[in-house]
């Protein structure tokens, strides 16, 4: 846990330093704010963040048995190998980014069916009707939103 905390501390410290740097590039606009200005709030947040990041770095994680619930073991960073478990989420993320980018071209029903099937394959589903469900779900969802809620989900060339 200690190592995880230190990584977290470094990430937040870098973030706050980045923010502090960007706030120095803030320029005045046509509208004058004679008092705090646009940079005050982000700067204050970044400074506080830096402080807490430093505190976290030096903090000794205490294991408190009475607060260990089922959830703790799951999210405790060092109990399992991070990388193997993160493979499926990582591939899914890439899949979703491709999906979102292709959405305006393929249209919602088609793109969603394809991606849902891909996701099921990634999760190694061996049940045939899951795949049928994926297609039906995508199509039904499209019509529910498009016609009922009047949300203009993207339509592609074919559908």
């Amino acid at each position, binding site marked *: 846990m200690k190592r995880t905390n230190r990584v977290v501390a470094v990430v937040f410290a870098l973030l706050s330093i980045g923010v502090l740097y960007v706030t120095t590039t803030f320029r005045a606009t046509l509208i004058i704010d004679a008092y705090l200005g646009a940079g005050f709030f982000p700067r204050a947040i970044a400074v506080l963040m830096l402080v807490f990041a430093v505190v976290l770095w030096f903090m000794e994680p205490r294991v408190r048995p009475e607060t260990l619930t089922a959830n703790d073991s799951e999210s405790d960073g060092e109990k399992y190998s991070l990388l193997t478990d993160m493979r499926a989420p990582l591939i899914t993320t*890439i*899949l979703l980014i491709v999906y979102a980018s292709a959405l305006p*071209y393929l249209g919602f029903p088609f793109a969603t069916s*394809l991606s849902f099937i*891909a996701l099921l394959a990634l999760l190694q589903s061996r049940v045939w009707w899951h795949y049928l469900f994926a297609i039906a779900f995508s199509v039904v969802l499209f019509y529910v939103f498009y016609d009922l809620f*009047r949300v203009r989900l993207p339509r592609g060339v074919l559908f």
Partner: protein
Amino acid sequence: MKRLVSVLAGVFLVTALLHAGGAAEDEVEYPTDDISLIVPFAAGGGTDAVGRALANAVENYLEVPVTVVNRTGGSGAVGMTEGATARTDGYTITMITREIVSLPLMGLADITADDFELVRLVNMDPALVAVRPDSPYETIHDLLDDARDNPGDISFASTAAPNFYILTIENDQGVSFNHIAYDGAAEAIPSVIGGHTDFTIANPGEMIGQIEGGELRPIAVMAEERLEGLPDVPTFMEEGLDLVSGTWRGIAVPQGTPVEVREVLEEAFANAVDDPSFIDFMENAQLGIHNLGADEFRTFIDNDIEVIRSIVDEMDF
């Protein structure tokens, strides 16, 4: 597994490319499909209300569904940019507002009115100055005189920053108020009623309920003529101040839209604005109809650009 993913990615790409290649179609019959009307402000606001009422009315004349799509952000910049850069097939039309003039002049948007082909101006609302009923300001001159004596002390509940109504007054009269920037009239009005700020300037439709209920007292309107709904409120002109200001909303399509498509739209919206249901709605909501065709709309915008440019130049020192 990785192969499947890469194959799928390939399918995505190929279809995308095919699609991009086939985009240039000849437009003969229009409209045959649903039309989206981009409203660059959130559902529930004044622009949204005009947009929805107009969409409702124009459907009868275009004979296809017209769906309102709210694309909010950047004081209208996001929605109007999307509208200006949409496909020029006439299936994406945009409700443009005064921000299309002010944002580019302030460097807050990359598009201008020139990125659109104008279809019709439908609405204009004058700015109305209002105070609390027990306020010492009986006329606009009371307010201006007090501002001259106490520069920067009288607090103005601003519905948006920057507020061109107040800047018009300040520049012309050489006075200054303490601007408190609120996020829309819904926040600014209670601050005046609650006695936290001295006055506000908003559109009649935004304040009529409070005015009729005796929570706010209008002192002057920045229009050429008195308002029908508020015949006792003098105009700035009558008070000897040559100041007219307000907000407006119109319909536009992206630059490059074929003339045949534009003609269909121009006719349909001309009919929609004259539609009794639309007129009823606008009257109920105290929204002013200002009905101008494409060419007059262009002149109207050119005039407004000059007005706002002079204000922006004044701010820049």
